[in-house]
């Protein structure tokens, strides 16, 4: 029996076009499709009360869009965020939106919903993102995650104004004056080394860790970048046996003699404790140590100034750690998820999040580097003015870039650069260290 519903070619094309147009427009307009339920797994902010800003923003959006939301705040301690995303990726079930730290979007890319449409709109509105955000959030030319304000941070120097002036003759406030552009052309890695030596002699060594946790690896990454030292390039070519890498290792060897002797065992809390306890003149950290000092050691906090990195032969590179918000491709309410991601990335939303975190969070978009919070936070007044990269004073970088993600994540997680520095410092010949690193890198190439 012949079918009674005959569909002409013209009608089929017309219907398909209409459906496609609706699908593309859906994330940005309130439609019936944007309703329903949405489960979100946010990163649990360590700053007390900082989660509230995110919670309020989501609830406002949910009330407007008539979406039922369920929010979980997942801590990064104990790798809970990594484990949750790994479990959800395997089970193909879980939250609709989930926060992901630095390397996770690339790791789970095949299970993530592309967000090119959201990012195109956001970049148009909020300005460009820096190349490191693009490197981490884009896989095969497609955005797989939206850069999150919450959790993203720059790990530049946080110095003691008094100790740097007294022992190293460096006025960090004059180099990085509040409310003005940086005046730091003379702030180079050589000057940094001399300052480290002077402060070490005075009994206040710089607190730069050389363990394998993120703070240690991030600092090593930026110093390597400052020398143009790349371990693996974007085409998977191993470049470890190169002069820039030798120069970076040699610099670390000279620097390490002025650091506390136990830095190979430092984790991410060691540098904070070092500064808050008044034992050192400088650490590399976002303003979390300053925030703790404000509460526990106000006399130390009054002397802290967060500022830019020293420049190396190839430029001034600051460690930048980015967090992302992603939506799973198996999510049940993708249009609502995209709509929420766009809402959380508006200027007003980012400003509220930055304020709630006391200036700790750094949004990725170009036009979001001038919020009042960084001007107003104190003591001392203007201490965070130069925390964001507001005058494009430095290049925001991530350790192990530009290696392909699968290699870079291993370099980063295994702390290859800090291990190289420690091995060489402890007496291993340069070429032997490089040969060992080459062997490790060959292992990281596996697919």
């Amino acid at each position, binding site marked *: 029996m012949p079918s009674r519903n005959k569909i002409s070619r013209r009608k089929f094309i017309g219907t398909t076009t209409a459906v496609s147009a609706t699908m593309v427009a859906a994330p940005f307009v309130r439609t019936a499709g944007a309703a329903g339920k949405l489960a979100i797994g946010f990163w649990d902010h360590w700053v007390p009360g900082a989660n509230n800003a995110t919670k309020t923003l989501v609830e406002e959006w949910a009330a407007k869009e008539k979406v039922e939301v369920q929010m979980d705040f997942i801590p990064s301690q104990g*790798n809970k965020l*990594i*484990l949750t995303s*790994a479990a959800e990726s395997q089970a193909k079930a879980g939250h609709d939106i989930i926060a992901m730290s630095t*390397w996770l979007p690339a*790791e789970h890319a*095949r299970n993530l919903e592309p967000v090119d449409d959201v990012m195109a709109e956001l970049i148009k509105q909020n300005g460009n993102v820096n190349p490191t955000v693009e490197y981490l959030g884009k896989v095969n030319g497609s955005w797989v995650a939206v850069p999150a304000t919450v959790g993203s941070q720059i790990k530049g120097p946080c110095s003691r104004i008094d100790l740097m002036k007294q022992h190293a003759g460096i006025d960090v406030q004059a180099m990085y004056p509040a409310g003005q552009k940086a005046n730091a052309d003379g702030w180079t890695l050589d000057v940094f080394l001399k300052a480290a030596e002077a402060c070490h002699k005075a009994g206040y060594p710089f607190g730069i860790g*050389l*363990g*394998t*946790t993120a703070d240690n690896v991030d600092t090593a990454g930026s110093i390597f970048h400052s020398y143009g030292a790349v371990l693996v390039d974007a085409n998977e070519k191993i470049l470890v046996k190169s002069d820039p890498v030798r120069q970076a290792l040699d610099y670390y060897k000279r620097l390490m003699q002025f650091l*506390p*002797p*136990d*830095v*190979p*065992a*430092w*984790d991410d809390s*060691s540098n904070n*404790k*070092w500064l808050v*306890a008044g*034992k050192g003149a400088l650490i590399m950290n976002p303003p979390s140590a300053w925030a703790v000092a404000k509460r526990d050691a106000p006399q130390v906090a009054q002397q802290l100034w967060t500022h830019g990195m020293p420049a190396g032969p190839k430029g001034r590179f600051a460690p930048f750690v980015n967090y992302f918000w992603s939506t799973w491709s198996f999510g049940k309410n993708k249009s609502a998820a995209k709509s929420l991601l766009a809402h959380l990335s508006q200027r007003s939303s980012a400003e509220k999040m930055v304020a709630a975190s006391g200036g700790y969070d750094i949004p990725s978009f170009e036009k979001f580097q001038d919020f009042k919070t960084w001007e107003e936070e104190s003591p001392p007044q203007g201490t965070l003015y130069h925390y964001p990269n507001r005058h494009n004073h430095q290049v925001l970088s991530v350790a192990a870039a530009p290696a392909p993600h*699968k290699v870079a*994540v*291993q370099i980063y*997680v*295994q*702390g290859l650069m800090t*291990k190289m520095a*420690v*091995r060489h410092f*402890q007496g291993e010949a340069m070429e032997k260290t490089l040969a*060992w690193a080459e*062997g*490790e890198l060959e*292992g990281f190439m*596996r*697919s």
Partner: protein
Amino acid sequence: MVDAAISAPHEVAATRSRGGLRRAMQRKSSVAFFMALPLISLIVLLVIYPAFYSLHLATLNKSMERFVGLSNFTFLFNRQTFWLVVKQSCIFAITAVVFKALIGFIVAHFVHNIPAKGQRKWRGMLLVPWVIPPAMSTLAWLWLFDPSYSAFNWVLAIFGIDPVPWTGDAYWARFSVILVNIWIGAPFFMIMYLAALKSVPEQLYEAAEIDGANWWQRMWYVTLPMMRNIIAITALFSLIVTFANFDIVRILTAGGPIDMTHVFATWSFRVGIEGGDIPLGASVSLFMVPILAVAAIFILRDITRRGSEV
């Protein structure tokens, strides 16, 4: 007649089956099985299934999309860091088990010789390191060893001794993780050996004494042979658990400095979970299974043989 002839075997079979079921239900072993069923289900769900799943994972490629057989293991065999981890795991487990056994044996003798009245108090106190969750007690040790604020170094400084880099130097770090493992595990050996000591009949010692045996001969010819099975089984269990240790190393050194304290579990976590290479992580954690299984078979066979000789 024909109908009756046909239906009779069915009825008999059904009656027999019902009776068989009733008899099976009345058997003590069946009742025991059903009572243990919830626990068995839990073990199947939480131990056996994950074990087989990890075997399956170990045969996949990095992106877990392709079966690669034993390639992950052959890849590991060519990695310098893997052999470093094998060496360290062996040093960690063997040293820790030997010292736990030695300390447990000595302390068990001390406790055994305490008069019965005060013995319970001592037994309770000596068990404390073993009953505290290791993650908690290791945190306390971490503060004692803290790179910058070590309480031990503070005490050493009072006597004018230079600070020791407990977790900052590779060899001191190895010493520290082994020390904490011994501190946590020695009470288990102590309590097992104490139980074994108490089960040695007093008459054997009396007979040995009449024969003129000295302390050492009584120990060698009476105590040790009577404790042999307990020593073997305790050492085996402890070896397996120590090889699989994760919490102590993870909390104290996280495998550092420069990978010099990694054991199988911590390196597997670093590679598999933190590094996003779950199949390789599973392969690392499974590497010891066949070796420990063979060791277990030999030790348990030896124990069974001695049991049947007795």
